[in-house]
């Protein structure tokens, strides 16, 4: 029974991806891409990775969809048709590549153990109960640190392209209809609550900085889309500080550890340290993602008449 479910998910993933490539209208391709993200998060659930499923549903389907739709609205009329031809010259090498990669699956040893056991043995030292959070914040702290750096660089890059230092971008006008503000009133507290809950959960169950940050980011994007003024009220200095807080807290952690050992990032294994870094990382992931969505160039009138 499970096998049938897996087969359905796999086939629909492949089918949807082919439809995305073959779609005539850009709009159609983007809507299908959102579907693709949701199907992929189903696949993550089947592969027992609820953390990735949450992140994929919020980022891959939600935020990426908003970004793509927003750009499409600014770039072209959504119904513009693209020329779609099948080029055998390209298709055959791609099929060949797929065949080669599929062939390589056969060479994975049957009794391959992975790093799960090593992580489980080292887990008590971190005082965390959930292995993925431990890997993200402790064992592979460098990855998370640099990832926060990548986010920060992306925000800076967007600002450079726009040639501005106004992170907040342009606020949308408040919509006339009441439902927008009603749904913000209803959903915003819940989203903040769920973001915090996921963050708190990360110490011992699926959840953590990434998932919490992503949910908070989608709350911010919702505020922006509904034209709610509260997003613009935060002082710009605070915005900048919080944007850097994740990267900075890792930097402080790395630097302060030099006082008693020779290595970077070998912090005293107390839960407080790790949780402090995690909370800062959550805030800065959320704000970086919001800034990336907001930071897209203003949709003023000279841009789109072209």
């Amino acid at each position, binding site marked *: 029974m499970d096998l049938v479910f897996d087969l359905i998910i796999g086939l629909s993933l492949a089918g949807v991806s082919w439809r995305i490539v073959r779609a005539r209208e*850009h709009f159609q391709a983007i809507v299908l891409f959102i579907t693709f993200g949701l199907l992929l998060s189903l696949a993550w659930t089947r592969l027992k*990775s609820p953390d990735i499923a949450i992140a994929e549903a919020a*980022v891959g389907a939600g935020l990426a969809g908003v970004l*793509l739709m927003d750009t499409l609205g600014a770039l072209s009329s959504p119904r513009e048709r693209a020329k779609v031809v099948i080029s055998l010259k390209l298709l055959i090498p791609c099929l060949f590549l797929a065949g080669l*990669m599929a062939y390589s699956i056969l060479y*994975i040893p049957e009794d391959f153990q992975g790093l799960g056991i090593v992580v489980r043995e080292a887990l008590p030292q971190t005082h965390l109960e959930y292995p993925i959070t431990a890997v993200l914040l402790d064992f592979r702290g460098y990855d998370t640190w640099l990832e926060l750096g990548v*986010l920060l660089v992306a925000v800076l890059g967007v600002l450079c392209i726009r040639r501005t230092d106004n992170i907040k971008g342009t606020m949308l006008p408040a919509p006339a209809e009441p439902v927008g503000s009603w749904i913000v009133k209803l959903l915003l507290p819940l989203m903040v609550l769920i973001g915090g809950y996921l963050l708190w959960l990360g110490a011992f169950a699926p959840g953590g900085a*990434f998932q919490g940050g992503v949910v908070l980011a989608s709350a911010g994007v919702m505020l922006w889309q509904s034209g709610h003024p509260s997003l613009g009220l935060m002082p710009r200095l605070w915005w900048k500080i919080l944007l850097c807080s994740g990267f900075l807290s890792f930097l402080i952690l790395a630097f302060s550890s030099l006082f008693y050992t020779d290595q970077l990032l070998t912090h005293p294994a107390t839960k407080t340290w790790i949780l402090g870094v995690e909370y800062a990382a959550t805030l800065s992931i959320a704000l970086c993602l919001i800034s990336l969505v907001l930071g897209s160039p203003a949709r003023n009138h000279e841009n789109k008449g072209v």
Partner: protein
Amino acid sequence: MTTVIIYALTATTLFSVGLYGFAIHPDLIRKIVSLNIMAGGAFLFLISLAYHTGSPEVDPVPQAMVLTGIVVTISATAFALCLARRIKEKTGQCLLEHRRKDTET
């Protein structure tokens, strides 16, 4: 074991379909969407291998890598979309030039 094979095969298919889409579309938005499909394929491959391990729980290290990867992908996507807007602003269209496309692909 069969679950792993199903998802790993799906992942390779997704990667090649994404690559094909990336190569064939001159339009930048479609290229970015195809890149995201490729990323999805790569992540699915990693996790299906993590699932494959003999131990009952899924290997946490690839899971953490994929979580990081998802966030990096979205920031790269946002940056690329911003660049696409700038290109549209400068050149009036959002395409890679045809001549260049032919030599690259």
